[in-house]
């Protein structure tokens, strides 16, 4: 559905939803107008200038629902773009398209819960969490977590930390 809306049903697939080393910066004052202009020029003709700032939040909104519902694998990429909703530039648009390319190759991904219990006979819970260090423009870090029950994900998230961590140890502790 989301892919259809962007006319990308048959888009080439990519291996990752986002380049982990990507630098995403907020659009700024003067350059912002240029960015907008470049964007609308280089995008397909059906995207006018205003259209661009409207369709970006709508696309991210759709992707967020997917990330919340059944696709923890795109959570990080989507939440990172989420902070540029109100003022997107070309780099954000490109990154969003990259997620769509990734999705087009992984349409059948979902979460599978299994009936076989672990040998102990008890349900098995596992939780993972980690955090990056100062990879955002404002030097904040990003936390991520996932909880599994018998190997199936039941809860997950990716969130920009609210304070600036002074070390990677502190970042993982936030």
């Amino acid at each position, binding site marked *: 559905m989301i892919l259809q809306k962007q006319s990308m049903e048959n888009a080439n697939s990519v291996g990752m939803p986002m380049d982990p080393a990507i630098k995403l910066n907020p659009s700024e004052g003067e350059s912002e107008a240029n960015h907008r202009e470049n964007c609308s020029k280089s995008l397909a003709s059906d995207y006018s200038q205003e259209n661009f700032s409207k369709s970006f939040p709508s696309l991210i909104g759709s992707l967020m*629902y997917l990330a*919340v*519902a*059944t696709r923890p694998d795109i959570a990080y990429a989507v939440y990172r773009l989420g902070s540029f909703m109100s003022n997107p530039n070309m780099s954000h648009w490109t990154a969003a398209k990259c997620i769509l390319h990734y999705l087009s190759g992984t349409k059948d991904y*979902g*979460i599978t*819960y*299994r*009936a*076989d*219990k672990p040998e102990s006979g008890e*349900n098995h819970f596992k939780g993972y969490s980690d955090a990056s260090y100062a990879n955002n423009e404002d030097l904040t870090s990003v936390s991520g977590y996932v909880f599994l*029950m*018998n190997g*199936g*994900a*039941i*809860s997950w998230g990716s969130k920009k930390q609210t304070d600036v961590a002074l070390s990677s140890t502190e970042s993982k502790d936030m």
Partner: protein
Amino acid sequence: MAKGYTQMPGMDYTDTFAPVVRLETICTLLALALTENWEIQQMDVKGAYLNSKIKEELYMKQPEGYNDGSGRVCRLIKSLYRLKQAGREWNLEFNQQLESHGWTPSMVDPCTYSRHKTEGIEIITVWVNDLLLFASNPVLMKNLKHELQSTFEITDLGEPSKIVGIEIDRD
């Protein structure tokens, strides 16, 4: 449908919020139902919002097609769609019905109800009028459905295939 946009806050309604089941709860219950070999069924309450009584004193013009020309107005006893408080009142009504039938809402997710019997356990999750039913054996599930059908006008959707836009498939 009522013209909810003409309602005045404080006069015609107060709170309008209502909880829905957490997605994590649904995921956890689906995972649990598999290892415990529980039955899972889905039901949908018809005209859910029409079930609840209204606390406020509300009047509306006679609806088109049902106007007797007398110029009199209708006093609303029960809720209508588009009333500001409709969603909240439905949730309160449903909660009250379940509690009177021996169900207990979860401490961590108020839209998840459970009931323990000697024959096993039953769980209901509520997303507005969309219910997921879990029961530890088929007889329990059958009785549970009968019970709900005698309390509400309700559609039996069988094995769940879709809940809040998420497709479910059990093999």
